[in-house]
């Protein structure tokens, strides 16, 4: 292919420098020329392949018919284009986007073939990965137990998954193409909320899941939590994806729990009242004077009835607090007054147990927004513990700290080892439980209740203690102004 013609020389340079593989064969398919790109990609030098057939590149991954079609096209004098998997010298496959043309002589007979191949392995691999990834996501949507719906920006349903058909009783074709809000699957009271959420999502705001009620084709009302998000669009504009979670089971469970608590509350109390009253009647001699032995038995019974009553009350209190269903009656509260009232109630305990009782309050404390009954309950629990474990002294301290009020209840008892402090606020956890029968026994719920009460008030409670150095429980609750600000922020969010 030597030539003195400058154009031919330049063409040759172009072929040599081409970013594509160039292969030239004779009519029988024997390789006459390969360019440097061929060597670079396949790993074969031109000496290795000259005179050989290009089938040495065959990967075995294309069908016989594919090659048949290739040759038929070429031998009928046409150009062939297509993607083909070839194999490099080291055995590694590569994707080639090929263009093979027959070259004719002056008489019109084919005497040569020129193949130009572009290495498109990277693109093919990316396409393949994309396809796999698409299949993964579409499987997630298809097999999701939760309904997933894609809407356009105007609320038109673009697609639904099988779970949506299942949960709402409509077929895909009944749902797709309809207006999500207007077609009647969203219950009327939920429409304003859904409309607002859709508008805010499409304006690009990140939303929290919200509760809505849907109406199935049979007319049943089902509560769902829905999570909206903006899907990046491609040309046709952004879409909104809605993922639903059926909440009916959770709702039913909550209702069952509430019913259970109410039933227990009512049904346990009456027999307990009667047992308690009867035993107290016996103890107090209503049925005549008791022998010393009888009195002892009756006293043990009475003590344990009280314990059972305390336990039932605590379980119910805790259950109500945990479900956040208890009516928390929060008012602007003068903490100093509540504190004084509770402390007064423990004066007798202090005298009976011969323990000093120190109170350190400032003359006034900022108001807090709290339920007085719950605050008293918490203080009483903490004082109760302190008086149980103190050696000689119990101290109650209250102080305003920035935007919080801190109340501390301290005893000078044995203290609690760090490893015992972790589980202290969990249910039915008791340390230093008295061994043997007599004496006051805790319910193991007191501190769990305190923690719930603190949380209900957006406050916190914690312990500070070391072995041999007594124990302090600190409780902090935000002062009025601060709390209102927090609540408004919560609403905004």
């Amino acid at each position, binding site marked *: 292919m030597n030539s003195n013609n400058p154009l031919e020389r330049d063409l040759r340079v172009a072929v040599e420098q081409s970013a594509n593989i160039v292969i030239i064969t004779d009519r029988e398919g024997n390789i006459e020329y390969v360019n440097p790109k061929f060597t670079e990609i396949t790993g074969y030098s031109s000496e290795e392949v000259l005179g050989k057939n290009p089938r040495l590149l065959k990967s075995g991954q294309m069908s016989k018919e594919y090659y048949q079609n290739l040759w038929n096209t070429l031998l009928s004098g046409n150009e062939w284009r297509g993607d083909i998997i070839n194999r490099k010298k080291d055995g590694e496959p590569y994707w080639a986007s090929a263009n093979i043309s027959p070259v004719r002589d002056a008489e019109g007979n084919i005497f040569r073939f020129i193949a130009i191949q572009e290495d498109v392995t990277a693109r093919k691999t990316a396409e393949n990965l994309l396809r796999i990834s698409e299949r993964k996501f579409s499987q997630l949507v298809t097999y999701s137990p939760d309904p997933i719906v894609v809407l356009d920006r105007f609320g038109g349903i673009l697609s639904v998954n099988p779970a949506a058909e299942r949960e709402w009783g409509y077929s895909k074709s009944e749902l797709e193409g309809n207006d999500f809000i207007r077609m009647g699957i969203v219950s009327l009271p939920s429409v304003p909320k859904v409309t607002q959420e859709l508008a805010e999502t499409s304006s690009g705001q990140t939303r929290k899941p919200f509760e809505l009620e849907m109406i199935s084709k049979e007319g049943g009302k089902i509560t769902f939590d829905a999570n909206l998000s903006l899907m990046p669009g491609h040309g046709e504009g952004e879409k909104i994806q809605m993922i639903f979670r059926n909440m009916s089971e959770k709702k039913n469970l909550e209702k069952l729990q509430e019913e259970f608590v*109410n039933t227990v509350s009512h049904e346990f109390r009456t027999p307990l*009242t009667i047992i*308690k*009253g009867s035993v*107290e009647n016996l103890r107090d001699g209503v049925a005549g004077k008791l022998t010393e032995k009888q009195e002892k038995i009756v006293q043990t019974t009475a003590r344990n009835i009280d314990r059972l*009553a305390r336990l039932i009350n605590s379980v119910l209190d805790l259950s109500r607090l945990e479900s956040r269903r208890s*009516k928390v009656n929060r008012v602007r509260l003068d903490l100093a007054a509540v504190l004084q009232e509770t402390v007064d109630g423990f004066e007798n305990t202090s005298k009976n147990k011969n323990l000093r009782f120190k109170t350190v309050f400032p003359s006034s404390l900022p108001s807090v927004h709290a339920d007085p009954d719950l605050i008293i309950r918490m203080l009483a629990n903490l004082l109760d513990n302190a008086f149980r474990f103190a050696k000689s002294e119990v101290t109650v301290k209250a102080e305003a700290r920035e935007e919080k009020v801190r109340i501390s209840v301290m005893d000078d008892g044995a203290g609690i080892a760090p490893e015992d402090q972790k589980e202290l606020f969990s249910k039915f956890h008791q340390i230093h439980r008295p061994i043997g029968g007599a004496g006051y026994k805790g319910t193991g719920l007191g501190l769990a209740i305190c923690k719930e009460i603190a949380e209900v008030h957006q406050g916190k409670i914690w312990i500070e203690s070391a072995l041999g150095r007594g124990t302090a429980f600190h409780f902090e609750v935000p002062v009025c102004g601060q709390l209102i600000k927090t609540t408004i922020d919560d609403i905004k969010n």
Partner: protein
Amino acid sequence: MPARILIADDDVDLTMTLADRLQAAGFETIVAHEGVRVLEAVHRQKPQLIILDWKMPAGEGSSILESLAKKEETRRIPIILLSGMEDPSVSEKALKLGVKAFIKKPYETAELMKVIQEALNHGG
């Protein structure tokens, strides 16, 4: 003359236990187990104090309280409300209808006796 106390609760065991106690303390007792019987007993036997269960069959606590509050001869009888639940809306309503005190089940007998004594001293 010992004070006469009406114990109104649907549970027979409870009224008996309480009656035993009150009798031992020197009171005269009447019991009623149904809401409708409460009003009858009040009119016939004129108690000086009523211990009333909030939840009674045939006559809810609130309707009994309303009837008692309407009549001149019964509206000054002190009432102690026994209740198994603590619903603030119940307490508010009951206070408006003249309830003197609330006792939550299970009560402390000593405390109940104290409340009864106070209600008798101040009421009527």
